[in-house]
Each structure stands twice: as structure tokens, then as C-alpha cells.
């Protein structure tokens, strides 16, 4: 019952945000361009094509009618066709979704496993050289341009040392697609060679993406732990002689992680944004690479479709994080 109330409460804000996102994308695609029809038809379209496009898209209609039609078409899953592939944008996007999700989810796991312990250590040894070093490293990690870092990693580990593959998700064809997640599909097919190969291909893209994500987690965990360490309950637990390790790794960590969970939404945003360029550098056949190719091809519908799906994913993740936070924090009653 409590969960239901929680979900409904969070959902109330979900629909308006989604509509707002549609409004922004509509504004960018239909209002900013001097002639959206010419834009939608592509660079080399003839005047006749443009005129036809204008009528077909209803661009001769008043703005609010256009917006309504736009919202209706999006909700029926129609984002137009890609000029480059000729297929519906929705299909193109959905076929590339698993690759991006696999990359970002593995990154979330890796950066959490690295970031949380480092954040706790930095807080426990506050103002020691470890703490100062971690502060510098995390600030640098957040300041590094991921496309540049990706290229440096490729240069060193793939080109010079030959330890990791340069690009792609696997050598040759991927496993029989079931979920589209290569790690899961190769496990289902019991194809260990592909699994290892897929993991091998994940190393550099995940390393690139994990740097800013882990840096964020370190900083938030550190702040959360410091906050908890200064709390009255830690003073009480210390005064009553609970062992230090239990205070830190059980009582303090749980409190600090409630704050960190909130940041996963933020981190997911960083990752999604990072995926755009990282996928392009590693030829990772996900949403990001699709977006970059669409930009290069001036494939207008595809870019707007990507914006919409990336925004929606971000909103959905934040919704999930909100619900999750409500579930793990007993004080959250609404």
C-alpha cells in the first residue's frame, strides 16, 4: 500500500514533465527553423518535395494544432522516417537501445564498486594526503573531456600496447539476439568465447564513462559519510561502544548511501551524455553513435527522435530513483 501511494505520488509529476519535454523538442524542431519543411526534407530536397512535405507534416496548420498532432503522433510511436536509413526513427532507436543500456548499466555497476569505497575512505581519512589526492583526482575526472580521454585510452591500450580491441561490441557477429544485451545473450547461449570477447570490448568504453561517474559517486559518498559521522547517532553509538567498523560500514554507510542513490539519476544523465561521444569514438552501435551519425548526415528526424528518447530515459530513471529512495528511506512516508 505504501509503495502504491509512493509510486502514484511520483507519477503525478511524470506526465507534465514528459509533455514539457515534447514541447521543448517541438519548439526546437517546428518553431526555431525558418522553414521546418525544408529541414525535415533534408538538404538536397527539391522545392516540390519540400512543398509536399509541408502539407504532409501539416506545417500549414496553426501552431497549437501542429503541437497536438505532434504529441499524438509521438504517442502512437511515430517520429517520422530517418532520411539516411529510410526506416522509421522509432525502429532505429529501439534496435540501438540495448547496446547503450548495456554500456551504461555496466558503467553504473563499475563506478559504484569503485566510487563508494573510495568515498568512504576519503571521508574516514579526512584531510589526509589520501583525501587530498582523491579530491584532485575526482575534480580532474569531472574536468576531463570524455571524447579526448577515450582517444587517449585507444591510443595507449589498443594502438600501442594492443591489449584491448579498438572499436565495436564483439569481433564479427554478436550472439543470437534475444535481449540485445550481448552479455546476457551469450550467457543464455552458453557461448563463453563471445562473453569474454564482449567483456573485452567493454573495458575501454566503460573505463571512459566510469571516470566522471565514479568521481561523482566518490564526492557524494564522501560528503554523505562526513555528514553521518558528525551526527548524534554516531556519537551515541560510539559512546555505547559499538565497534568502529560496524558504525562505519553498517550504520554510517546506509545513511550516506540514501543520499548517493539520489545521485544515480544524475550519474545516469552524465552517462547518457557521455555515451553520445564515447560511442562515436568506440564505434559502439548504440543510441549515441546513431545520434552522432545522424548529426553528420543532417538526419533531422533522427536527431529529434534521439533527443526525445534520451530525455524520456532520463526522466524515467529519475522517477525510478525517486521511488527507490522512498523505499529505502524509512523516514520517507509520502
Amino acid at each position, binding site marked *: 500500500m505504501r509503495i502504491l501511494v509512493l509510486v502514484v505520488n511520483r507519477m503525478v509529476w511524470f506526465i507534465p514533465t514528459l509533455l514539457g519535454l515534447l514541447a521543448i523538442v517541438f519548439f526546437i524542431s517546428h518553431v526555431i527553423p525558418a522553414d521546418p519543411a525544408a529541414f525535415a526534407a533534408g538538404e538536397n530536397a527539391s522545392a516540390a518535395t519540400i512543398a509536399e512535405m509541408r502539407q504532409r507534416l501539416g506545417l500549414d496548420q496553426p501552431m497549437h494544432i501542429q503541437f497536438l498532432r505532434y504529441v499524438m503522433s509521438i504517442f502512437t510511436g511515430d517520429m517520422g522516417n530517418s532520411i539516411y536509413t529510410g526506416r522509421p526513427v522509432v525502429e532505429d532507436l529501439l534496435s540501438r537501445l540495448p547496446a547503450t543500456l548495456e554500456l551504461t548499466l555496466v558503467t553504473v555497476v563499475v563506478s559504484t564498486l569503485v566510487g563508494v569505497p573510495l568515498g568512504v575512505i576519503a571521508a574516514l581519512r579526512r584531510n589526509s594526503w589520501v583525501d587530498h589526492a582523491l579530491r584532485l583526482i575526482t575534480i580532474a575526472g*569531472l574536468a576531463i573531456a570524455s571524447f579526448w580521454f577515450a*582517444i587517449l585510452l585507444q591510443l595507449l591500450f589498443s594502438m600501442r600496447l594492443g591489449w584491448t580491441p579498438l572499436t565495436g561490441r564483439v569481433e564479427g557477429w554478436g550472439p543470437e539476439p534475444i535481449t540485445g544485451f550481448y552479455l546476457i545473450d551469450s550467457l543464455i547461449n552458453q557461448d563463453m568465447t563471445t562473453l569474454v570477447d564482449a567483456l573485452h570490448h567493454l573495458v575501454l568504453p566503460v573505463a571512459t564513462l566510469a571516470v566522471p561517474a565514479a568521481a561523482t559517486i566518490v564526492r557524494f559518498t564522501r560528503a554523505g559519510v562526513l555528514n553521518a559521522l558528525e551526527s548524534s547517532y554516531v556519537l551515541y553509538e560510539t559512546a555505547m561502544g559499538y565497534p568502529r567498523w560496524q558504525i562505519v560500514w553498517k550504520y554510517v554507510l546506509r545513511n550516506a548511501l540514501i543520499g548517493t542513490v539520489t545521485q544515480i539519476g544524475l550519474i545516469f544523465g552524465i552517462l547518457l551524455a557521455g555515451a553520445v561521444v564515447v560511442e562515436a569514438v568506440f564505434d559502439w552501435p548504440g543510441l549515441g553513435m546513431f545520434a552522432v551519425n545522424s548529426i553528420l548526415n543532417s538526419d533531422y528526424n533522427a536527431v529529434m527522435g534521439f533527443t526525445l528518447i534520451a530525455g524520456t530515459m532520463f526522466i524515467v530513471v529519475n522517477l525510478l530513483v525517486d521511488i527507490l529512495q522512498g523505499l529505502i528511506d524509512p523516514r520517507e512516508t509520502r
Partner: protein
Amino acid sequence: MWRVLRKLAEDRASMLGLCMILLVVLAAILAPILATHPGDVNQFHTAIRLSPPNAENWLGTDRMGSDIYSRLLFGARITLTIAVVAILVAVLIGVPIGLIAGYYEGLGSDILMRGSDVFLAVPQIVLAIAIAQTLGPSIENVILALSVTYWPFWARLVYAETRSCKNETFVEAAIALGCSPWRVMVLHILPSISSSIIVRTTIGMGGTILTAATLGFLGLGPPPPTPEWGRTIAESREFLPMAWWYAAFPGLAILVVVMGFNLLGDGLRDVLDPRLRRAARGR
């Protein structure tokens, strides 16, 4: 004010950040003097293309044989111009919206804030890509895309601060004394929330520069032959692994300037942010 500056001067990390920023600012201002080949922004020397760092070309040359060091210096001008103007516009949009929405309570304020929430609900780079793609590659359009993307950060911040500030005694007193709302906002509320705005702006500079460089890398930045750093890195990719210097130095320049702003912002927050200070003193 002096106390703040002195505290800041004691923080080694902030000073390091300040030095990094000054380094890039000086490079941008003095680019024509510091550059060994100031003409190379537009000139080619195909005979010496892709030469490694040497006495003549300190950081090597690019695919056109232009001096990378000189192009980097002029690139600093572009990067800083984009970031400063974009942030300025974002602040000029965001701060008044936040002030007004925070001062007047009502449906209008709610709509303004919900609107800015929607902008915040989309990853900034994604929104910037969509806008820049629609407008076409140029410096002005990158600036526009970044301002439209980033203004909600200031609106949100100023809104929250104004709301809490409105209940402070000095604001209530000013209202009771009959100051006009405009006067209360500009002369009473704005000065007392300025430190939060400064902190947010400093940290925002770093993020904006990164996003601008990413747009450049994706080909959505100012068109060639502009020596924009992100675009230079994109160009360099086909000449790897041979011409490592081509990719390495522009990226290093981005790292230095972004890290500079992040370090300074971090230090400023520790010194300025009254909420954090209060929390630290609480124990």
C-alpha cells in the same frame, strides 16, 4: 570581503585553480604576442604537415602543417568567449526568472519553475546538440544553444535562495517599510544571495566549456578553419596513433581550464556558501 579572499588565498587547491584559469586567460589575451606562428590560424604549410614537436613548432603541426601551439592559443579565445558569453546570457535569463518566481508566490511562479525543471530533466549535452543541430554550426549558435540549455540552473538556485531569503527579518523589514518589490529584490535579496550565484557560475563555467568542446568535437561548433579545441581533437583522429601530439595538447588545454574553474568553484563554495558554513560550524 577581504576575509573571504584571505581564506581563499590560504586554500592551495583554489589557488591552483586560479593559476590554471589565469594561464588560459593570459594565453587568450596575449595570443598574438605569445604565438610563434600567429598567421597559422588561416595559413597552411603542407610541406611540414604532421611534424612532431620540435624547436620550430613546439607542440608539432597539424594535418595542414599549421603550428598547433599557436592555434591552441587562439583556440583559448574562442573557448573563453563562448563560455563567458553563454554563461552571461544564462545568468541574465535565469537570475531574473528565479528572483521573480521566488518573490511572487502564485500560479505564474509555479509554471516558471516547472518549466525550468523540464529543461533540467534533459541531459544538457543532448538538448544543446538538438538546438545546435537545428541552428547550424557557428559560434553564435553554440552560445545560444548553451544559454538556452543552462539558464534553468540559475533560475532554480535563485528561486530557492529567494524563497528562503524572503522570510529573513531584513527582507520583511524592507517590505514593511514600503520598499517597492523591485527595490527589495535588487537591493536587498540579490546582494545577499550573490555568493551562491558566484559559486554556481564558477562551477558552471567548467561544465559549459566541456559541453562547448563536445559540440565542437561533434562538428556542431564553429566551422573550420577556426582553431576550436574540440574540433581539433576530432580532426586528429584519422592521424592516430602516429600524430599523438595532435590529439593530446588540445585535450590537455580543455582539462586545464575546466579543472581550474572546478577547483576554484569548490574552494569558493567552501568559503562562501553560508549553508555549508553553518553546517560545518554546527558541531
